[in-house]
């Protein structure tokens, strides 16, 4: 049986059941104007990740985790493939259209492969905090979360400015947002509830959520939903087409294309990215930008 408290609803009230952000309908907000009158801000993100061989899987194993008994050389190396090979294919595909993405980078990648991180920073890619590695998730009870955030950001900031953050596996504790804001982070990519940025409350400091869809990621569609590359292409194109049309009537929209170098960077998959980028970039009114640039433009336009 169950306690009568189960039928009590202390947070049954107008708006949300928490105080992190206010309830707001996308359709009722003032239309956003992007620079140059663009309809779509194209935000490509390329995650650079490292999955350690001695994986603990606490408190859960995210998509892409190692799977066999120790030592799982198979998955360890298949993920690391992204950092050695896959990323350079993506780089080429983006450079063809002069697209500078945002790159969430595990601190482990910056320490282990500094030449890679130096190269993307020198190309004007935005560096985004992405925790220590893919086995150190942020969750309620994570040991010394503040130190993990400080160390992640100190490591990455040796290579350039870091204004944004994507938690590994989009996992947070109750404190994560407050700690990130204290560490000078201006936006997070973990909350998938909107198509535009929105302000969050983080211990009295300014912090914004950026719309970094989980559904539309290469990893979610190919590995999670087990769709094939052609089906991925169709979904990215349908996603873009709808937002492009919607933007004509409702104001600027963001097309986010969240990539993983260990997923889309394979020879048989990279063509899908190239096809979709060509589809997008041939349209007028596309503004390829980094997350921080989009946030700055949104703040100006929404003010």
């Amino acid at each position: 049986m169950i306690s009568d408290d189960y039928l009590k609803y202390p947070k049954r009230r107008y708006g949300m059941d928490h105080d992190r952000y206010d309830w707001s309908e996308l359709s009722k907000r003032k239309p956003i104007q992007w620079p140059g009158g663009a309809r779509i801000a194209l935000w490509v993100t390329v995650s650079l990740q490292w999955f350690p061989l001695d994986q603990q899987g606490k408190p859960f194993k995210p998509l892409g985790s190692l799977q066999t008994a120790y030592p799982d050389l198979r998955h360890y190396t298949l993920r690391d493939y992204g950092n050695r090979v896959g990323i350079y294919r993506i780089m080429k595909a983006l450079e063809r259209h002069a697209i500078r993405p945002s790159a969430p980078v595990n601190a482990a990648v910056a320490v282990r492969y500094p030449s890679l991180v130096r190269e993307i920073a020198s190309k004007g890619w935005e560096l985004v905090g992405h925790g220590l590695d893919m086995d150190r998730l942020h969750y309620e009870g994570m040991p010394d979360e503040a130190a993990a955030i400080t160390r992640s950001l100190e490591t990455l900031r040796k290579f350039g400015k870091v204004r944004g953050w994507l938690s590994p596996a989009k996992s947070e504790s109750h404190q994560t947002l407050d700690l990130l804001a204290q560490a000078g982070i201006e936006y997070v990519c973990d909350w998938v509830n909107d198509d535009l940025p929105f302000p969050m409350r983080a211990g009295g400091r300014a912090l914004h959520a950026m719309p970094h869809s989980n559904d539309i990621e290469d990893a979610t569609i190919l590995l999670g939903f087990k769709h094939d590359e052609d089906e991925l292409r169709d979904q990215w194109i349908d996603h873009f087409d709808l937002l492009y049309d919607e933007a004509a009537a409702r104001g600027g929209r963001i097309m986010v294309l969240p990539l993983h170098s260990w997923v889309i960077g394979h020879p048989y998959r990279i063509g899908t990215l190239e096809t979709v980028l060509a589809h997008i970039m041939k349209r007028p009114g596309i503004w390829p930008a980094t997350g921080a640039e989009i946030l700055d433009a949104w703040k100006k336009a929404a003010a």
Partner: protein
Amino acid sequence: MKRDPGYYDYLPYNKRPKIEWPNGARVAFWVAPNIEFYELEPPKNPTRISWPRPVPDVLAYSYRDYGNRAGFQRMMEAMDRCGVRGSVSLNVALCEHHPEIIRACAERGWEFYSHGTYNTRYTFNMSEAQERALIQDSIDTIKKHTGQKLDGWLAPALSYTENTLHLVAEMGLTYVCDLFHDDQPGPVKVRKGRLTSIPYSLEMNDAISFTVNWVTPRHYGDIIRRQFDRLYAEGAESGTVMCIPLHPYLIGQPYRMKAFEEALAYITGHDKVWLATGREIAKHFHDHYYDAFAKASEPIHDF
């Protein structure tokens, strides 16, 4: 525990009284958007946990919140363009949290029926008194916020007790969506009252299609057409029911909308389709066929 829920007798599909829908329609077609509120930190139910990850499950929570902030509007506009009214499967606390959404539905003449208070409060393990309180809350909240009498029930997160259907009938509701044994309405054997089961559908449900069966958005459009074509053909002999249950957080994603709207327009482009609500279908069956169906049914002997 029972081996047979005891809610219906056996009535073979090929030996039934003929159903005639209003105006000679072959198919009674209804769309049931599940408009839901999931709590960030729900209380524990002993037999079901709410979130796949530890609280706060930022990803799963915000994914569902997307439906209310962004997806609902897109879904509603597509339904408007196709001339389809919704029958809202409502977590009634949403009346307090997001009255704007309730108003938008009410203005369109949509029906509201209950899907419990929150989608994170399960009926499992409730006493009869507790479950009565849960149902009464729905009756009162829907009346207060929409002026409508509550007629239909779809248990929150499909969670039940052995009392559920008996209690909703006894408390004056007329139909339930929780039985998936048929493509036509049917009588439900309850202790008191007169209750009709109407076909809702898990096969056409976007949540099952996208998150259990992993279908692609374009294939979802295809299976909707195939389901309709067959029920439309069979409806020439005796009226059938087709339901599309939706979740704005799933169908309202930009990459899923277009294929869905095309399939919806395909259905509404046919003549002899009765664009109905759950209440209207249940009432027509109740007034004309309930007794004949009950009489034609063969008793089931427990085994």
